[in-house]
Structure formats: structure tokens, C-alpha cells
């Protein structure tokens, strides 16, 4: 039920039947690219909308409610505004790097989205190193931030970029180790196999307390890696005005903005896939009636529901916590998260070796 594989197979076989292999390949690539980009843009816009609504809820406000029903078109209107805005050129800035930085950031986040399984059979590429691939790609984003800060020829930006670099490089370790925990359980890096291994229960439930610890560490480190509050030191607006994107305007600023939200989505989607069973429905042990009803809900809803939950938690962090200081941030990673996650990984390896998980 609800398998996308036959649909995609029939599409490719249709292309193969009607076009030469070259054109079939090209059309399938282009259609995939267009679909991903559209998805990316729409999702990014609505994540911004969601953040504004969540933030408003936390702050006893209404949030956007004028443009469209419940303000649904507000971010689209904002995007149009940003598109039409004048791009400011900065004297003495390295214009090539200045212009390319937002693209590096946004390309990194688009590429990461490609290998996330949204539902059964709905995945652009199912690499056998899926998790590693996403880690590798998302580690590229920081380069964009670094050169954006440097090329702006602004002191605030440089400080923001340096902070961001130190932060992302440090927290990548914890993200990686927390993901390794799930990989150790599943015995594979392929995202589809990881999901398949959770058929009889999500890892967060099957993996005892260590899995939960890994999940929490992943959430904290993931939030830090996306430069979001309370870890938004790179753009700490009370200290550095806007950090690395102080000098950006118009669509280039929008790129940074979109990429931030899409990175958050990638982090949440990865958490969903590795710990919360991806697009698998929620099942109660041997409670067949309940399980059948759950099965009727399409996997896409399950996936996006879980991801939305994780994203909500991350927004909740942002709107209730004060920001950390840079030394506290690094101390948190190197003194607490990293040792805990190393120990946790050891524990999980032991659990897996002994087959003690459910």
C-alpha cells in the first residue's frame, strides 16, 4: 500500500520506451531536479511560515495573518519582496566570493535533501552510504558561511564566520557519533535499510536508554550545526548585528535564510529516519487493530508528521532559550557532548554485539 516505486518505475519505463536513452536520462534527471527544487522552495517557504507561527505562539502573538487565509501567503509575499530588492554591492568586498557564498550554502542543503526517503519508494537516490553522504554534504555548508563572512569585508561578519566555523566543525563530531549509534543498531548506512530495520519498532524505543541519549545528543548537536538558537552565535544579532550575513541583501540574503531552514529540515528528517522509524507508521506491539488503522495513514504523512515534530522541538529551543557564549558553546561540545556520545557509542556497540536490543 502507498508504494511510490511502481509509479516511478512506470515513469522511467515510459521514458525509456518513447525516447532514446540519452533523452530519457536527461528528461528523468531534469524532472527530478525540478521536482526537488520546487519541493525545496515550497518547503523552505512554509518552514519560515511555521517558524513565525510557532514563534508567535511562544510569544503570545498572532503571527502572520493578513496575506492569504491565516497568513499562508505571507512568506511568498516576503520572497517576492526579497526578489525585487536591490542587491547592495560592497566596496572592497571580494565580489566573486561574496556572490558565490550563498550558492555554496544553498547547494549543500539541496544536495542533502536528495537522498532522504520521504516515503516508500520516494527517494531520489538510495546510496549505500546514505548517512555518510548527508554528513559529507552538510559539512560543505560551513565553507559558504566562512567565505561569506570573509568576503563581506565587515568585522562583524568575520567574527560571525569564525564562530560559525568553530561551532560547526566541533558539533559535526557529535552529530556523527550520534548518527553512528543508529548505524550500529541498524548495521547499515543505507537509509532504506535503516528504515527496514525499524519495521518491528523504532530505534528510539528498541535501543533502550542509549538510543534516547543518542537522539537527544543528535538534536542538540544538530541544532548547533544549523546555527540556530540557542546556538545562533554566528549571527548573534545583539552582538554582531547579523553575523556572517550582515552585508547581504535581497535574494542572496534569502538564500542564506532558506538554507538555514532547509538544513533544519535535513537534520530533523535524518533524526526521523534514523531514530523515529522514517516513514514507518507507529505500531503497538501485537495490537493488530490499532496497527491496521495506523497502516492506513500514508507514509508521507508519517514522515512529515515526525519531521514536523522534531522541527517544532528545535523551534521551541530557539524561542525559549537565551544564547550561549562561544566558550560555553565549545565547552558544551568538547567537555560534555563528545565524551558522553563516545561512551554512549561504546555502550551501544556492546548492546548490539550482545543482541540485547529488542
Amino acid at each position: 500500500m502507498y508504494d511510490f516505486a511502481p509509479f516511478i518505475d512506470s515513469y522511467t519505463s515510459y521514458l525509456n520506451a518513447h525516447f532514446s536513452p540519452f533523452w530519457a536520462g536527461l528528461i528523468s534527471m531534469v524532472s527530478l531536479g525540478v521536482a526537488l527544487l520546487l519541493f525545496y522552495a515550497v518547503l523552505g517557504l512554509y518552514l519560515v511560515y511555521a517558524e513565525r507561527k510557532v514563534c508567535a505562539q511562544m510569544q503570545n502573538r498572532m503571527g502572520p495573518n493578513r496575506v492569504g487565509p491565516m497568513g499562508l501567503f505571507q512568506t511568498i509575499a516576503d520572497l517576492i519582496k526579497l526578489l525585487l530588492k536591490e542587491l547592495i554591492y560592497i566596496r572592497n568586498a571580494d565580489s566573486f566570493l561574496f556572490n558565490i557564498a550563498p550558492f555554496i550554502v544553498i547547494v549543500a542543503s539541496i544536495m542533502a535533501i536528495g537522498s532522504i526517503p520521504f516515503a516508500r519508494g520516494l527517494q531520489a537516490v538510495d546510496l549505500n552510504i546514505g548517512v555518510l553522504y548527508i554528513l559529507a554534504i552538510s559539512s560543505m555548508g560551513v565553507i559558504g558561511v566562512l567565505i561569506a563572512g570573509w568576503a563581506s569585508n565587515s568585522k562583524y561578519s568575520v567574527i560571525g564566520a569564525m564562530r560559525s566555523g568553530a561551532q560547526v566543525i566541533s558539533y559535526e563530531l557529535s552529530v556523527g557519533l550520534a548518527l553512528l549509534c543508529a548505524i550500529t543498531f541498524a548495521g547499515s548506512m543505507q537509509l532504506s535499510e535503516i528504515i527496514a530495520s525499524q519495521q518491528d519498532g523504532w530505534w528510539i524505543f528498541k535501543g533502550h536508554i542509549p538510543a534516547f541519549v543518542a537522539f537527544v545528543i543528535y538534536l542538540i548537536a544538530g541544532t548547533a550545526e544549523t546555527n540556530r538558537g540557542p546556538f545562533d552565535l554566528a549571527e548573534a544579532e545583539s552582538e554582531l548585528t547579523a553575523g556572517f550575513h550582515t552585508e547581504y541583501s535581497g535574494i542572496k540574503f534569502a538564500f542564506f535564510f532558506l538554507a538555514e531552514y532547509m538544513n533544519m529540515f535535513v537534520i530533523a528528517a535524518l533524526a526521523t529516519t534514523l531514530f523515529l522509524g522514517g516513514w514507518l507508521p507507529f505500531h503497538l506491539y501485537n495490537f493488530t487493530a490499532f496497527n491496521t488503522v495506523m497502516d492506513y495513514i500514508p507514509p508521507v504523512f508519517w514522515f512529515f508528521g515526525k519531521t514536523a515534530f522534531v522541527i517544532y522541538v528545535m523551534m521551541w529551543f530557539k524561542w525559549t532559550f537565551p544564547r550561549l557564549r562561544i566558550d560555553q558553546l565549545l565547552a558544551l561540545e568538547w567537555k560534555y557532548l563528545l565524551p558522553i556520545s563516545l561512551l554512549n557509542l561504546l555502550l551501544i556497540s556492546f548492546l548490539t554485539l550482545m543482541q540485547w536490543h529488542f
Partner: protein
Amino acid sequence: MSGPKIIFFILAAAILVFSVMSIFSRRILRAAIYLLFVLVSMAGLYYMMNFQFLAAVQLILYAGGIVVLIIFSILLTSQINSTLDPPRKSHLLLGAVTSVLGLILGATTILKYSFQASASAPIGTDMRTIGRHLLGTGAEGYALPFEVITVLLLAALVGSILIARKPKV
């Protein structure tokens, strides 16, 4: 021409162009970014050859690690307006001669060697094989213990920084 071939040529061209630009760029950070493009294109080539693990490692280590390190050190040491001095004429000439010699040497070696397709079945490069080799104790094993020894290098680095650091005033 098939799709993969087009992509191969695009990647190959990117590697060549960006490596040349990386060498000739006067601005040091730009050179680093061109280097990043070269490395990413190389990762693309690996993907095309289905060496996915290698590609990901290339991205993590080189693009995500080394280039970030390079950028970091540039950020810490140089100013936005500073550009590298143009090379001296004699150096330029010497470099050109050396590189032409190198090109001739490389090209003749490659052209003289007759490449033959390997008869043995291709080794699987999926994660399982790599993992077995890393952690294995048989032939081609012991990779992980070897890698762990490199921690010693890290310890030495940290130690040297500690010793060399200016005392806190």
C-alpha cells in the same frame, strides 16, 4: 554521447579549469575556493565510478576538513585587500619549463603503457566489504588499528601547541 559521458566531460573540464585557476589566482582565499571546486568535482568522478564511500570520504576529509582548515588559517592571518605578489619572471620561466618537462614525462609514460582490462571480477565496494577490511584481522585487515595510531600524531600536535603557546598575561 550518453548522459554519463557528458557528465564526465563536464567534471573533467571543471577539474582542469579550476585547478588552473587555483594556481593562477592572486587572491589566496579565491585559490582555496577553486581548490574546493576541484575536490568536489573529483568526488563527483568517484560517484560516477560507483566508489560512493570514497566520494563521501573525499568530501568529508578534503572539502569539509582540509579546505575549511585552509580557509580558517587564511581568515586568521590575512586581510581582504592583500593579494599575492606576482611571480618573478625567472620563477615563471623556470616553472613553465619544469611543468612542460613533467607533462612530457607523464604523457609518454601513459601513452607507452598498454592498459588492459582486468580479468578478475571487480571487488565490491559496498560498506560491508570496507568495514570487514577495516576491522578484519585477516589479509588486507588491520586498517583500523593502523588508523588509531594516527591519534598519536594528534596528541603530538596538541602537545606542541601547548608547549609553544604564549603564557597567559
